[in-house]
């Protein structure tokens, strides 16, 4: 019998079969994601380079950077440009609020993660569960709770007035303060969990060894624990900062019209303000900002890991 070489023919046949199965199993999910995530994003970028018509939607084919110019300039009736800082302010506010939220979350989240990691193993699962539960409840509802608390006739103001600390209710709602409280509230679990995950894997004997070598608590914290938890810290920062930048619900409910963030600004272009190209441009800008932030965090980790 001739020595049949199975390799080439069979390999190719099996290769084709494999791709057929992949198309049937992975194909549908991948297709949906491409058609309803990637495609819309591409369309958005394309629309950002179009002109706006009178009703706010798109005039196809007339390419223009008008939408991007609108970021910092306002076009007057006589076609001249005037500097307009409104939108820049909104971007700046979003950036700083997100940074602030990340910082606060880190401040509160790190000790909490450490606390959970140093409890007996049986407690840890329950504590982690308790930490994650809020994440799954409705964001609207959680922010609404803060409206209840922060409003003029809310319990905080009522309590402060009872104690005589203030005479008039504090206007806490619809301020940057309210938005940052709400944002911290919404994203705190995202900081605790990654740090906890990193700490759980840490060998606490290193801490003991550090004390053995006459280190103080602060030194131990700085030199031993934080480096060990560093990947978790970075992950937590990204998980808080990025969604914060693009948040919509919290600034809408707690910021009112006065404390707008980028998300609200984008939404406005598809609602009352009706300017689709501008909205698309803003969306693209937000995406870019997020990508840059992630790259920044990621590249900041590398040098730290070699400590």
């Amino acid at each position, binding site marked *: 019998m001739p020595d049949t070489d199975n390799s080439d023919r069979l390999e190719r046949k099996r290769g084709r079969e494999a791709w057929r199965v992949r198309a049937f199993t992975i194909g549908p999910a991948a297709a949906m994601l491409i058609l309803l995530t990637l495609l819309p994003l591409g*369309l958005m970028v394309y629309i950002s380079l179009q002109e706006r018509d009178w009703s706010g939607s798109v005039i196809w084919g007339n390419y223009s950077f008008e939408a991007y110019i609108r970021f910092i300039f306002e076009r007057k009736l006589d076609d001249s440009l005037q500097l307009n800082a409104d939108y820049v302010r909104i971007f700046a506010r979003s950036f700083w609020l997100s940074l602030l939220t990340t910082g606060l979350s880190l401040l509160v989240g790190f000790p909490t993660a450490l606390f959970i990691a140093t409890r007996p193993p049986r407690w840890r699962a329950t504590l982690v569960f308790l930490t994650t539960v809020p994440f799954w409840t*409705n964001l609207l509802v959680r922010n609404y709770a803060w409206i209840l608390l922060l409003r003029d006739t809310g319990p905080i103001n009522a309590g402060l007035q009872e104690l005589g600390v203030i005479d008039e209710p504090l206007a806490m709602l619809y301020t940057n303060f309210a938005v940052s409280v709400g944002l911290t509230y919404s994203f705190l679990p995202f900081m605790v969990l990654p740090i906890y995950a990193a700490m759980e894997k840490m060998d606490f004997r290193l801490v003991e060894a550090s004390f053995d070598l006459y280190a103080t608590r602060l030194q131990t914290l700085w030199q031993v624990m934080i480096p060990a938890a560093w990947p978790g810290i970075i992950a937590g920062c990204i998980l808080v900062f990025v969604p914060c930048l693009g948040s919509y619900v919290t600034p809408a409910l707690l910021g009112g019209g006065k404390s707008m963030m980028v998300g609200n600004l984008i939404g406005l272009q598809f609602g009352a303000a009706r300017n689709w190209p501008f909205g698309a441009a803003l969306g693209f800008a937000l995406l870019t900002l997020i990508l840059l932030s992630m790259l920044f965090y990621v590249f900041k980790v590398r040098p730290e890991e070699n400590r």
Partner: protein
Amino acid sequence: MAIGARTHPGDPRHWPGLVFMAISFFAYVYLPIAILIGLSFNENEQATIWTGFSLDWYVKALHNDDMINSAKNSLIIATIASLLSTSLATLAATRMAFDRFRGQTAVGALIALPLTLPEIVTAVATLMLFSLIGLPLGLTSVILAHTVFCIPFAYLPIKAQLDRFDPKLMEAAGDLYSKPIQTFFFVTLPLLAPGIMSGAVLAFIISLDDFVTTFFVGGAGSTTLPIYIFGLIRVGVSPEVNAISTVMLIISIAMVSLSLLLNRGQERGDD
């Protein structure tokens, strides 16, 4: 104590401030919700001073036709989106776990993509796409949009379950005269069932709770519960909102517990 004893700062377990911070954390997280729930039972409309226990607001909410309708929509959308996304995720995950091909990492990133993008951006981009192709905004558009971002949520628990899956089991089944389809139904699917159910429950909650996408991609007849609540909140604080919110909270927590239980039960069940 040994000669040359030094002060030992001690076990991190007992560091000062740690317990305090942790308590503050949990208080900060749960107190507002607790107050919300508490106030929903408040007899008084003012909702600041407690005047008495009452279920009035729940009754009122139940008789609110708009609320009932939006709840119905929410359930329909969540059920369909969850079923679709879980099926798609199951098919994809089972293949991805036991296969190796060029571009596989890219596919993995694609599946995770909705989790990384800000929802406002995907929502308006989807709106623009739908309007371009002329898809009317209503239940269908919302279901489509929800299905897409539910896929990664369904995918995660299924993949976690697959990581615990011994591929030799599929070889063993084939060795024992089981054709590939039979292997899928008699071995793979039963062993994956907890992960699949967990994924379905997760997808369901995510869809139920969604606001931003639904807001932009939905039409007049597709008001969901979160949209309805948002509308009410805009008008002002009302105990009725408290009641509805509390109900939503309880549903979410119940479903999350269910999903986690399904996952944990499996970890103790096999191997």
